[in-house]
């Protein structure tokens, strides 16, 4: 089985679907001839032709609107928003239109669109190339929000997202594009090739949406994480010596509640980790769910390790980014509780 980076795995997913389904088409800023600023669509226009993978103007609202119209027609468009930080002009089309179209038309029109976008920090991108806006989308009835953490998952989840008949926000942790970054920014960069989850079939396969994965089994505490924070949490477990069970949510919403409750009921403790700002972040929802579903199993208060409630600061990237030290400290705190 070939070893792929996350970029190659995403490219392979798109390649498979362009090949299998003539109703799949890709557009976005710089995705055509050039193949995208992160190279995810590299070679696809050349292989499948101009109309299957083409450049869009710098109009995020317009790109998503066009996708909604195409979806209503019966196509399965995949839009790339170059950075998640740029998605805000498309918010009206996503929230008021794509998310609600099935509901408001009682199923006459649907929005089987996928919006791919790189998110998250760790690349010194400052406040307009580092944000984690997932909480804006998990709040919206009708949207599905997906975040992969490995090349293997990225491919299987993207295929499932594109084939899903409802709109999916597919957030790609850009710091993981080229390697499994664990938050130790001073250490040499690890390539995906050394990671077992980089083994990715060239062929079509799907990973079902709504299903989490347990990436580390443990007895002491359940860690809920996604994206780059999965790798940070793994490093923190090793560093702290706490026997943490780490759940990679993979689909944020609708979340795999069974996986969460089964684990927390067993460990009795829960730490939630995300890069996004804390207040009203997705961690708040996870914390509420754990409290509602597992209250009588909890032996300590739930901990959240998140980005601070500031805009993403360029100079203070590593003070902002929730690294293994902060997660390890939280793991130790819940064990004392």
């Amino acid at each position, binding site marked *: 089985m070939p070893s792929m980076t996350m970029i190659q795995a995403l490219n392979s997913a798109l390649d498979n679907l362009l090949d299998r389904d003539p109703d799949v088409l890709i557009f976005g800023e710089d995705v055509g001839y050039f193949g995208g600023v992160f190279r995810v669509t590299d070679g696809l226009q050349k292989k499948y032709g101009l109309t299957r993978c083409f450049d869009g*103007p710098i109009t995020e*609202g317009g790109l998503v609107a*066009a996708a909604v119209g*195409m979806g209503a027609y019966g*196509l399965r468009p995949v839009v790339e928003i170059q950075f998640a930080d740029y998605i805000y002009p498309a918010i009206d089309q996503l929230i008021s239109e794509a998310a609600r179209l099935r509901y408001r038309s*009682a199923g*006459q*029109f649907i929005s089987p669109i996928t919006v791919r976008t790189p998110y998250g920090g760790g690349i010194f991108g400052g406040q307009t190339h580092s944000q984690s806006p997932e909480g804006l989308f998990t709040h919206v009835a*009708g949207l599905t929000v997906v975040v992969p953490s490995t090349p293997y998952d990225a491919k299987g989840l993207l295929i499932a997202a594109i084939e899903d008949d409802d709109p999916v926000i597919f957030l790609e942790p850009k710091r993981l594009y080229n390697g499994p970054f664990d938050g130790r920014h001073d250490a040499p960069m690890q390539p995906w090739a050394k990671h077992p989850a980089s083994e990715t079939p060239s062929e079509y396969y799907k990973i079902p949406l709504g299903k989490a994965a347990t990436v580390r089994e443990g007895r002491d505490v359940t860690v809920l994480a996604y994206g780059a924070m999965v790798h940070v949490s793994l490093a923190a477990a090793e560093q702290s010596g706490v026997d943490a069970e780490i759940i990679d949510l993979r689909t944020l919403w609708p979340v795999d509640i069974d996986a969460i409750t089964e684990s927390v009921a067993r460990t009795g403790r829960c730490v939630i980790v995300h890069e996004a700002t804390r207040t009203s972040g997705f961690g708040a929802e996870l914390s509420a769910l754990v409290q509602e579903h597992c209250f009588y199993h909890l032996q300590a208060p739930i901990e959240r390790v998140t980005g601070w409630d500031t805009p993403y600061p360029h100079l203070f990237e590593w003070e902002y980014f929730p690294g293994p030290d902060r997660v390890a400290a939280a793991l130790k705190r819940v064990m004392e509780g």
Partner: protein
Amino acid sequence: MKRRNSQPLALHIPQPLGRPGDPPDFSKLVLPAPGAARRPETDSPAAAMRDLAFDLVRVLDDKGKAVGPWAPKIDRELLVEGLRAMLLTRTYDNRMFAAQRQGKTSFNMKSRGEEAVAVAQALALHAEDMCFPTYRQQGLLLARGCPPARMMCQVYSNTGDPLKGRQMPVFYSDREYGFFSISGNVGTQFSQAVGWAMASAYKGDDRISAAWIGDGSTAEGDFHYALTLAAVYRAPVILNVVNNQWAISSFQGIANSEQTTFAARGLGYGVPSLRVDGNDFLAVYAVTAWAAQRARANLGATLIELVTYRAEGHSTSDDPSKYRPADEAKAWPLGDPVARLQAHLETLGGWSPADYDALEAEALAKIAAAGKEAEAMGVLGSGPRLSPASMFDDVYKDMPWHLIRQRQQAGV
């Protein structure tokens, strides 16, 4: 040395020519003679027909005669069909407005004075073409043969409502009649229509799309998105600006009509753009057919500004006497689309006031029967009601765990 302006800067806030208590004043509306506007070939580039974005295509003269190069070659039957659909729309609107006053529904919106826009355009398009309307193009549905009872059921949110009580009244959606789900976030449909048209072109289909937007909503980003994308990808779409002079209480100047026309916006994108008398059934039909011909020939989009007048309030929640001259509607220089088409039929001969009365009676009977049929399925607040359990359906294709749980919690 500090440099100073010769006079202090002054912020300009556009004002209409008349407010309540003032006489109506349409002196800024320049009316070229009917038949005077030229008709370019459909493959003319935008730059070769700039004048038409500032002109006004008119076909019917004051006596109801069709004149000039835009006079469409359409048979009498189609004209009668148009008159029938406009009367049906007007009758439907009156009935549903009254139903709101009777407490049978929470809300309604009339299209009086603008019926030619939706009806003539529906008849100029193919039945399979896709419409992305605003809330004032109910005439599209009625002209395409949608049963009025079906629309009433939506307004009443009753057990026959195709939208299952999910949308506020008049926010129709009807896939069977090529009518996209209406959004209250005005303008969003304009850019979506371009996406639909791109999809049709992508598939090598022969259907085109058409979108409508109000003069006020042209200020939304979606207007710019739509024109940009339509021009870039040469999408087979007709983009219509319904300039009915008023966006609730804001006159068209608030959306920037003092400096230019709405049609002229299209020129900046290289999209052929025309201004048409929106109360002239024949002119609207001709211009729409011209734009459709362009779209079908892979020549791309057309922007059409339909100059008309919103003869009634914005909605049942609005009172236009609070912000515009009382008799402005009567003074509207382009008249009433129903009366003008009727006058035209009279000039053709073989048409009498009795024929008109018969059409009107037919519309009244049809709407009365539809009302009876729809009201038997309930009205808002009384009669049969949909199960609240259905509230949780269609959020997603398959109901996720949290909605199943919430449905249980709701006890429905």
